[in-house]
């Protein structure tokens, strides 16, 4: 007798977020990227649909990176010293779907570029690089509150994903993103309640839940990955059960976490493995965007994703 699998039927679904706008939509992107839309837990193809594969965004800085491991520097060669070339390499050679532009150069300790300079940089970047764009601040709240609105305005109409809003500092960014037609990254410290609260606070300001992507904060393999994994899983279970305030896609900053661990610092090949394994684990807990650093790790993840989705 054939075994009958018990299949879950979920009332909720994850919202679909589109990043990038083509000319017809008021932007200048060559393509758009959609994430989310799942109606079941990750990869449970028999229970529901997973219309959009997890996407890889290549992490690019607006300045030459200062503390990257040698392995990363070697992977990009001289291109890494110029953000435009660096991004172009990612698009042309490594087939990046998305670029995640980190405005590190605006940080008071890393160049302290002004908001006007940042805006000018973003305009130029959008002119040269045509894939959809994610823009993140330097992590200095006060400075980000000046820089990100300027970047947002410079990218008006391009439907970027901009981050990060945190519980203590979300109003300025939400107002800009709302005005300029982008989507927002809502960052919470491995805490499902704060993730939820922040989403409510943001939607209270008028930015719809369909324009929020959750950054649950992740740890690399061996450095808290399982915490992030379980928080993401719980959020997904709640969302699929009908909780709209958690029904947003996830963005996971894999590269920065994986390359921080001592194993990666000790041996570059280990770093690649670390980044690969962290990313592939998170795909299984529902990651929609993986922000990655090493092209070889990104290639591994793409290969792995192809395998996962082959039978769909």
């Amino acid at each position, binding site marked *: 007798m054939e075994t009958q699998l018990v299949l879950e039927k979920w009332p909720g679904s994850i919202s679909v977020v589109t990043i990038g706008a083509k000319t017809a939509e008021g932007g200048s992107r060559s393509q758009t990227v959609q994430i989310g839309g799942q109606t079941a837990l990750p990869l449970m193809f028999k229970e529901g649909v997973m219309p959009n594969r997890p996407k890889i965004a290549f992490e690019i800085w607006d300045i030459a990176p200062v503390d990257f491991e040698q392995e990363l520097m070697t992977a990009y060669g001289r291109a890494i010293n110029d953000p435009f070339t660096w991004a172009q390499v990612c698009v042309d050679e490594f087939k990046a779907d998305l670029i995640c532009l980190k405005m590190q150069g605006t940080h008071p300790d890393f160049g302290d570029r002004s908001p006007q300079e940042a805006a000018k940089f973003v305009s130029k970047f959008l002119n040269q690089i045509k894939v959809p764009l994610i823009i993140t601040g330097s992590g200095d709240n006060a400075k980000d509150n000046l820089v990100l609105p300027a970047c947002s305005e410079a990218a008006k109409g391009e439907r970027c994903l901009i981050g990060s809003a945190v*519980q*203590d500092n979300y*109003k300025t960014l939400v107002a800009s993103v709302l005005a300029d037609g982008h989507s927002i990254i809502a960052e919470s410290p491995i*805490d*499902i*309640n704060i993730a*939820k*609260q922040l989403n*409510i*606070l943001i939607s*209270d300001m008028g930015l719809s839940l369909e324009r929020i992507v959750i950054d649950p904060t992740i740890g690399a393999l061996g450095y808290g990955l399982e915490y992030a994994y379980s928080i993401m899983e719980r959020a997904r279970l709640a969302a699929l059960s009908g*909780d709209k*305030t958690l029904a947003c896609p996830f963005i996971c900053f894999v590269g920065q976490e994986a390359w921080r661990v001592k194993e990666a610092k000790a041996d570059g090949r280990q770093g690649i493995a670390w980044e690969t394994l962290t990313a592939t684990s998170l795909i299984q807990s529902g990651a929609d965007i993986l922000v990655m650093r090493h092209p070889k790790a990104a290639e591994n993840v793409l290969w792995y994703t192809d395998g996962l989705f082959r039978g769909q």
Partner: protein
Amino acid sequence: MQKYKVTFFPDNLTVEVEKDKTILTAAISAGVYINSGCAGEGICGRCKVILKSGQVNTRSCGMISAQEKKDNVYLACLTTIHSDLEVLIPENSRLNFDKLTPEELEERLAGLYSKVEDVQIIRGTSEDQAFDDSGFIRKIYLELPAPTINDSISDLERLYRGLRGAGDFGVIETGLFNIRQLGELLRDYDWKVTVTLGKRDDSVEILLIEPQDTANKNFGLCFDIGTTTITGQLIDLNAKKILGTKATYNQQAVFGSDVITRILYSAKADGLEKLHLAVTDTINQITKELITEQKVDLNDVYGIVCSGNTTMIHLLLSMDPSHIRKHPYVPTANFLPALRASEAGIQVNPRGLLNCVPGVSSYVGGDTTAGVLSSRLYQEKDPCILIDIGTNGEIVLGSKDFLVACAASAGPAFEGSGVSSGMRASSGAIQKVSINKDDFSVDYTTIQNKPARGICGSGYIDLLSAMLAAGIIDKSGRIKAEGKRIRQTDNGKEFVVCFKEDLQSSADIVINEADIDNLKRSKAAIYSAVSILTRHLDLGFFEISKIFIAGGFGTYLDIDNAVNIGLLPDLPRSKFIFIGNSSLAGSRQILLSAQAKAMADQLAAKITYFELSVDPAYMEEYGQALFFPHTDLTKFPTVRF
């Protein structure tokens, strides 16, 4: 009756007392406190005084040495007054603070004398009609027939016979102290005496036999000993009438704001003693102010009933509380017999009794039992909830068929402590607030309409709800608006409720983001405990027929606003009944009724304790409630901001 003047030195205080009263009694009436560890039985020998002039009668007791006899040393409790007297109280006999260093004094009495305040309480409509029997303390005036050759039973039997003729008292017991003086007393006063009876568990004790009819002077005290606030009432036990209510902060707060910190402190050198003194000092001070204001003699106060959480009762009685916080969380005692109040350091008549309302467990104490008693939750047909919003919040869910209780450590914010402009619900406390949405101007009323001095719990509930509605704070409690009332400070932003210029006071009344965080944690602890307990019993909120809200909120609590901020579940408002300080009300009932005491014993045995910390869902639920009103908005369908 002949009266004499007794002057006490070094205080140089004079009091007029009747002949045959003891020097100890005179001292108590004068407000001069003399050590009396044995409650005036002549056993401990700690109440030695030196007679400077005057005539006295005394009894030998073996406590006074030959040399002391020469020096005119007497035991105050065994020495009666037969003329005007001058009495010196030596250092060793004094029960006062002179022996303390200035630092110790400051620690023990920090702010004590200025802080006792009148409080207004609301009273449940039916609470005092629940029991109609006589209470803890009774005074019976007897005119006994003098013995004859045909009626020659002994004096003591004669007294018992007289008492049995006056009522059914069951087993009567008394101490040697009373029997020794009986023969002389009865004959001196023509067989007319007043007997004060104190109810112990299965018997009554003759506390005191006094000459002539003093039955009309019969007073008692009831206290709610909260972690943060201590409230006391003086009751005329004959008229069953409340004469006054006063409250102050529990002075133990200097040793830690929550019970666990205080338990830890009690293990330090002298820690238990300090905590014990802090609470008895506070009780004695409240008592002193109550009797002074009502012109009641402390000798006429014979009984006191205290309700408090288990730790508070341990500290009151100086019992080691350390096992309350250690697995498996066992207290020294939940059910305590009636005790001599003076043994616990409480100053009433030295022979007066102390009853503590029985507790349920280490973390659900007699205050909860008293709350169940006074709310009459135990008589309800359908499940009801009692929520006591205090530093140690307690929740009881049940009906006449079952009672389950849990404790939620909510912190003192709703009692006005630990928040920058917080105060108790006493005169001048802002208790009702509304805010104009356009210009953020604040409209408020204070208790007794006195100039505003601070904000009490109900004021904070209104204020938070109004700030949410006006868009001054977001749902996480951060101040998001701007305007002349909003300022940046070291504690984050603050909102000015009243400017000092408008108050003619030295400080603005404000609420800052740290205050809001404190209040948010308090309300989350209460709500999540209610939610978990209900779920644990497989009940839905909709199945709850009544919700009794208790707490030191003064006379007012806006249920709508309490729901808006997520303190109380979103249920039809008609289900909520605000009952004020239910712990105090319960202790008052026990003071006034022996049946109420018996019921409290039954309830404490019947209530099942549910430990929240073993339920993994509690932290989850608590985290979700750290938001206004809640992260799961479907739980608050009527709340709209």
